[in-house]
């Protein structure tokens, strides 16, 4: 097909603004899939993703649309992950397009992700077509939406298409705009073959399958190709497009979006953002924007039952196959036994992986407090990176610790302004800018230490704003912080799972909270047990485990002795399963209880 008759585009939107519904409508209108097949939403397949209203994996689809000008156009619709944790993935999917439909829920207006996604699209030089969706809703406020388009996103309002994915309004207008306004595939005249990898999946029979957008040249079965970033060579076994099922083709040409099966087995060997070229006539330059994704948030994951260790290990291995951004390695903890140190792109990514381990792989797990990567500088030595508080060097040897920050865009109702400002302060953040979104909403642009938003920031944002607040962020610079390692000790022994790196001023408060929680959750003991929080060897908070008051059975005669003995034996065995810290027996789930909240 002629390159000039191909359009590559995506839909970007805040969650729930109707992306899935509209995508389905487009597939239906172009007869790509029948209405009946649409019952299970095609582009958003994973249950978990659907429940959370987000997409992690991008599933592209190729449609054929006969435009009013009489030509049949090949439209490649890229789906983009909906969450900031996956912003690099989003940016790669966007880079595979020339245009984007920016969806705005007519009743909600512009929200945090709308802004973030629009900026990502602009950054990729995409033609952005605004679509005001759900206009069938009685609460639709077109005036507000058009005003926000102009004021916040600087998009001329007259470009907006009015649509309803649900009622099928504006579908043809959208397809016409895609054909007319979005430019045909760029860079197709480059003299060598180049294709952008925007995703990969694992297939048990065919190994790693790369998803690629071909910019120039051709890829066909039997060609030897080179991943320019990774320096890896391989042979093409199969190519094809998504209709939306994988459909084999002889070649993928400039402008096409499709998949490539090669001799590579492990998806970890295929990097999103990498450029593919032919070994025969390799390209000189890679496509722009390649970078290696690095996990930003780390935590320990441990099986609840230590016998599940192998099961957890294989679950992690399988998850990793389809998610190169997720990394793990084994570690062990005094309190929790054997487990894994895992790295994630962000909080949501972490949550999703944990949830999938539980649901899809049926392993009960417990996670330690999440941590970020700290840059630690020591006297006369190179900087080291620390993602686990346990590995922090001796305080005396450290000259400076730097922590990652984020730049957050927080959308909130005016009325929550004061409370959110104090929340940001409490989290050691600074507010750089305040923008009015409309009569009732403002957007705060803040810089916050990443580690401060790991635990409860989002929950508190939601509760302060009664669910109306939303936040989006991008990673910022590293900045020096007055950071210390806080240990929690039970009977004088540090319990590694509770060690954390915290701001010095916050250590006493956090230490008190933790000691209090542990004292509450550890069952009463027969012997006195001190729980202490320590920084640099100084005790900054302490509490005591409750002392047992009563543990006695009244009736104990000849016939009861065997039963009593059995009971004591059983309790004794039960204790063996507990963590022994000195004379204290702590049920493993006590740690878990504390880590849970």
């Amino acid at each position, binding site marked *: 097909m002629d390159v000039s008759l191909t359009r590559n585009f995506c839909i970007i939107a805040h969650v729930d603004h109707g992306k899935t519904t509209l995508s389905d409508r487009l597939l239906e209108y172009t007869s790509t899939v029948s209405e009946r097949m649409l019952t299970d939403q095609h582009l958003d397949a994973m249950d978990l993703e659907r429940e959370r209203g987000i997409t992690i994996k991008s599933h592209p689809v190729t449609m054929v649309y006969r435009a009013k000008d009489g030509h049949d156009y090949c439209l490649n619709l890229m789906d983009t992950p909906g969450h900031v944790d996956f912003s690099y993935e989003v940016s790669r999917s966007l880079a595979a397009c020339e245009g984007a439909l920016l969806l705005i829920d007519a009743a909600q207006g512009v929200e945090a992700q709308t802004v973030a996604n629009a900026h990502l699209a602009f950054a990729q030089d995409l033609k952005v077509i605004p679509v005001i969706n759900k206009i069938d809703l009685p609460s639709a406020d077109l005036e507000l939406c058009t005003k926000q388009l102009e004021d916040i996103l600087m998009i001329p309002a007259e470009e907006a298409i009015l649509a309803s994915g649900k009622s099928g309004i504006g579908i043809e207008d959208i397809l016409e705009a895609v054909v007319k306004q979005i430019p045909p595939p760029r860079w197709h005249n480059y003299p060598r073959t180049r294709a952008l990898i925007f995703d990969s999946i694992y297939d048990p029979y065919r190994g790693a399958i790369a998803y690629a957008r071909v910019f120039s040249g051709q890829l066909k079965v039997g060609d030897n190709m080179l991943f320019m970033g990774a320096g890896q060579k391989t042979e093409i076994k199969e190519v094809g497009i998504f209709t939306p099922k994988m459909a084999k083709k002889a070649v993928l040409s400039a402008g096409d979006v499709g998949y490539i099966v090669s001799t590579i087995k492990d998806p970890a060997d295929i990097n999103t953002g990498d450029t593919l070229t032919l070994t025969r006539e390799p390209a000189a330059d890679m496509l722009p924007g390649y970078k290696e994704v690095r996990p930003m948030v780390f935590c320990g994951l441990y099986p609840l039952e230590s016998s599940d260790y192998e099961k957890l290990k294989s679950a992690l291995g399988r998850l990793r196959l389809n998610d190169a951004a997720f990394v793990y390695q084994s570690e062990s903890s005094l309190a929790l036994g054997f487990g894994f140190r895992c790295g994630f792109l962000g909080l949501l990514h972490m949550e999703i992986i944990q949830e999938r381990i539980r649901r899809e792989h049926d392993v009960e797990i417990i996670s330690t407090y999440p941590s970020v990567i700290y840059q630690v500088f020591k006297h006369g030595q190179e900087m080291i990176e620390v993602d686990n508080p346990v590995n922090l060097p001796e305080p005396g040897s450290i000259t400076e610790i730097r922590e990652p920050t984020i730049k957050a865009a927080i959308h909130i109702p005016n009325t929550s302004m004061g409370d959110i400002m104090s929340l940001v302060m409490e989290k050691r953040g600074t507010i750089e800018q305040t923008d009015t979104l409309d009569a009732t909403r403002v957007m705060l642009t803040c810089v916050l230490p990443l580690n401060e938003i790991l635990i409860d920031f989002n929950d508190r944002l939601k509760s302060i704003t009664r669910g109306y607040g939303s936040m989006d962020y991008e990673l910022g610079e590293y900045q020096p912080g007055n950071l210390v390692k806080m240990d929690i000790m039970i009977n004088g022994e540090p319990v590694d799972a509770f060690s954390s790196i915290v701001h010095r001023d916050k250590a006493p408060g956090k230490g008190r909270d933790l000691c209090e929680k542990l004292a509450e959750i550890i069952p009463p003991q027969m012997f006195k047990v001190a729980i202490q929080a320590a920084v640099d060897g100084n005790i900054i908070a302490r509490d005591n485990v409750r002392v047992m008051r009563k543990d*006695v*059975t*009244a009736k104990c*005669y*000849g016939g009861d002795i065997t039963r009593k003995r059995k009971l*004591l034996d059983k309790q*004794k065995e039960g204790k063996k399963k507990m963590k022994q810290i000195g004379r204290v027996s702590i049920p493993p789930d006590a740690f878990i209880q504390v880590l849970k909240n």
Partner: protein
Amino acid sequence: MSEMLPMSSAPAEPVPGPLGLYVHVPFCATTCDFCAFYQTRPTAEGIARYLEGIAAEMRLFPPDRPVTTVFWGGGTPGLLAPSALRRLGELVRAYVGDQLVEWTVEMAPASVTRARLEALRDVGVTRISMGAQSFSPELLAALGRQHTREQVLRAYDRVRAAEFPSVNLDLMFALPGQTEAEWMSDLDQAVALAPDHLSTYCLTFEEDTKLWVKLSEGRVKLDPENEDRLYERTWEHLTAAGYPQYEVANFARPGHPCLHNLNTWHMHEWIGLGPAAASQYAGLRAANTADLNQWFENVGQGRRVTEDRVELTPELLAQDALIFGLRLTAGVNPVALARRFPSAQWDRARGVLADLEAEGWAEKSGPLFRLTTAGRLLADAVGEAILTAMDPG
């Protein structure tokens, strides 16, 4: 899980201590809500079989030395007709020899009659233990007990009139809906009757009881927070009233502690006869089959079939002598125990005993080592700590 009990019997200890006899009488008119004992409805045929079975079991399992204490428990031994009581009494007399010092029979207030008491007196019973449980009509009803407050009082008068040397009343506390004041009033009413001995039991919920069902259905509630206080108040109150505590649940006027039970707690020997009866004898701890008909069949065919068999090693007996001995107010004599069970893991015990003392749960008093009042409230935890130390397995 049952196996044959060996018929030959080698003494477990070099010097045999006192020997007790426990006779389980497995009949009850109805089942109390909190009951987890083996018992069944009394029928003429059942009782006849029972007596015949006891005689057979006695022939099968003669004592190797005279028995010093007898305890008839149940069930409700006092439910048997006077003639049956006499028959059982005669069997026991013939079995025990001539060294008997104590013979206890458990009775339920509703079935205390002059004729029964007379029969018991005639065969030589010395001690009546009566399950009063409470003096509160509502609480008695709530427990599913088949007697009234008046019946308790009348039964007590009859027992006293029959002039048994020692009389015990059983009481229960922490009953669903019982206030602390109600419990103290129950105690006062019991003390006012001036029995020789009092046993007080904190209500426990055993699986397979009606009470358990009520609990799991949420129809009754537990208040474990309050239980430790009830324990403490009971102990103080009865001691002050002239009934010093001698075991977690037992109080007696001087000279009236139950010797049979003391021997058990000191880990001496006793033979158990009747369905479900437990023995600790000739190197084995075990319980008879908990089914009247099966037990009858077995003994009829010359077999004693037991369950829950535990071989008694000196190590195990030493652990139990400590664990159960520390439930006694007097405590234990570690030196004497070490002499009795020299092979036990005393070096391992020493550490935990020292820890208990350091924490204030135990104290030394002359040659004795005993739990403090606060420590006695933790007797089970103490037992577990001792077991963990002596048998880390």
